[in-house]
């Protein structure tokens, strides 16, 4: 099966062939590199921009205003902070003009820890991003969703922030993307650039389809009765593993993959919490004014009388950055062990 990086590349190829995407751009996005994570390798409409994040976001908004369907990349979300006011404008232009100007653009940017990225390649961004109104915000946790969410993001008439859990970019999916060859080696041969001189290389793209994955819909990855585990992105596979291990202890977890952080799937969340009475939100962003706090606040207000244990957030430590050394990173963001411990504690609360 495709890796998440390949899935994004396939989606962008589908976008340029079928959805009118003429500009896939950012720093090192075009040839020869095709993105530092290879997400844009071999795409005919990928181009290199100046090293200028404000120019990149501004250009994307102008293209969207001009009726194009741009996909812009900020190489790491750690470098997106100097564009906040422009992101704000991409999100408020429709509202400020009382509906006159639509801004159909996608910005993709890798987020989170897990690759020993140190202070400036490990930031999370969802808590800040969900404070910027007028944007839809997605984060896949597997290759298949990475593909489907990108196609939906491109087709959405609003600006969409596509957060990429960078540590999962090399992970292979379990579900086949429509049109993907059976053998992952064959896919690699078709679309991965060779090492060395690539000037004569051209990818052979499979005949792809659109799985029509709506934005705003969560997916229940694992059904369970005892505790609702709400997560997304890099933390999701860890939550699944924690759930598997806790199942041996008789703790039955329901794992919800939000997939879209805004607008989020309130119904799936509330239905699950009303069923289990216990909830833990897991993400790796810093814990103060964390996105998960909003989810828990809504759960507290809307599901209060169903709750049997304190609604709990397991998030990153409130520190300025992720330290490079292994013990520092492990102490800064949730690990499998801390997820298991937290879930167990909430499950055992009388």
């Amino acid at each position, binding site marked *: 099966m495709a890796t998440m990086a390949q899935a994004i590349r396939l989606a962008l190829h589908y976008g340029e062939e079928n959805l009118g995407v*003429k500009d896939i751009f950012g720093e090192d996005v075009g040839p020869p590199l095709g993105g530092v994570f290879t997400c844009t390798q071999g795409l005919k409409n990928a181009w290199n921009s100046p090293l200028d994040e*404000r120019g990149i976001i501004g250009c994307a*908004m102008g293209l969207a205003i001009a*009726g*194009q369907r741009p996909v812009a990349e900020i190489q790491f979300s750690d470098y997106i902070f100097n564009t906040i006011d422009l992101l704000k404008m991409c999100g408020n232009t429709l509202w*400020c003009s009382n*509906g006159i100007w639509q801004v159909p653009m996608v910005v993709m940017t890798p987020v989170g820890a897990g690759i020993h990225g140190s202070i400036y390649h490990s930031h999370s961004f969802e808590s800040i991003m969900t404070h910027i*109104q007028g944007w839809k915000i997605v984060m896949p946790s597997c290759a298949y969703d990475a593909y489907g969410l990108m196609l939906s993001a491109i087709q959405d008439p609003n600006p969409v922030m596509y957060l990429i859990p960078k540590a999962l970019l090399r992970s292979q999916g379990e579900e086949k993307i429509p049109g993907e060859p059976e053998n992952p080696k064959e896919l690699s041969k078709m679309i991965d650039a060779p090492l060395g001189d690539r000037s004569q290389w051209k990818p052979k793209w499979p005949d792809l389809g659109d799985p029509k994955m709506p934005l705003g819909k969560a997916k229940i990855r694992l059904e369970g009765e005892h505790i609702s585990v709400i997560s997304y992105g890099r933390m999701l596979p860890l939550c699944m593993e924690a759930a598997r291990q806790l199942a041996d202890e008789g703790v039955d977890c329901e794992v919800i993959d939000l997939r879209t952080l805004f607008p989020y799937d309130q119904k799936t969340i509330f239905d699950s919490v009303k069923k289990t009475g216990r909830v833990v939100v897991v993400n790796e962003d810093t814990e103060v004014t964390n996105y998960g706090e909003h989810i828990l606040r809504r759960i507290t207000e809307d599901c209060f009388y169903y709750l049997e244990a304190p609604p709990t957030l397991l998030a990153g430590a409130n520190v300025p950055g992720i330290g490079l050394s292994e013990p520092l990173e492990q102490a800064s963001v949730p690990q499998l062990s801390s997820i298991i411990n937290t879930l167990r504690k909430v499950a055992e609360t009388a």
Partner: protein
Amino acid sequence: MLSSKEQKKIYELMVKTRVLEERLIKMNKSGQGFFWIGGPGEEAFNVPLGLLINKGEGLNHDFLHFHYRQSATLLTMGAKMIDVIRQMHNVAADPYSGGRNFVNHFAVKEWNVVNVTSPIEVQYAFCIGTGVAQARNKAKGITIVTGGDAGTAEGEFQSCLLWSSRKNRELPILIIVTNNRWGISTPQNEVHPKSGIAARAKGFGIKTAAVNGNNPLTSYEALQKAMHYVRKERKPFLMEVFVSRLYGHSSASGANWVGGEADCIREFEKQLKKKKIMKDSDFQKIRQKYEEEAKKALIEVLEEPKPDPASIFNHVFVDRKDAELV
């Protein structure tokens, strides 16, 4: 050389704009509008600009990224006085923002007028994108961006110069900086180098012109040349336009007449009289005509309803879908 008829038309539009702006200032001072910001002193440049724009919707027409001192350009393009007054009084019928934004913050899709924003200079970043789309389109449409001299200190101005001047990837952008020598209360010579703004563009290999924006005839001619270059060569051009700021920065600084700055309308009147194109009585008649129009518009607008509070979630997203947390 512009004909007498054309010069009369320019004069009339300049006065129309001035009368409107003075009405907006009065509205602010009498509590009929919360805040005023506008362009008295920029009419001699902004009217010719409005006349020369390839007006329309889509890539084949000019994309316009303006700042909040361009009522003269909009009125010249055909905007109605009453609509600007509607925005000043923030009524529901304000066609540019539905009562959401300050006056002179225009947005007109059918003329490619992109939202005017209060943060200065962000338009220099957004114009890159319409420039890229128009460079690809290869039609006659160009991108026109305007900002003030103070805001050129922001990074977006450098972004615009850089992105538009990349070799073999040049963008058809007419980059305008109206230089009134002030940033609110900060004089230009305190915060900018002596060399001027046009000099910065030269470093990027961008052609430039310095223009007396208080003279509509030289402004018209300079704009014609610059636009011809951008349309034909599909490359950027920077105009530094020296203008006056006759009522200060905004209502925040009092919006009172500022002495000691050239008034482009008075200056143009002198020229028109000297050339025997118009006389004092013509000037008076024109002013009176627009004063009456503005007054009549105001009376109408004062009766119009304010926006519905329930409309705040409209246009958070297209079709309102998912905008409201329930």
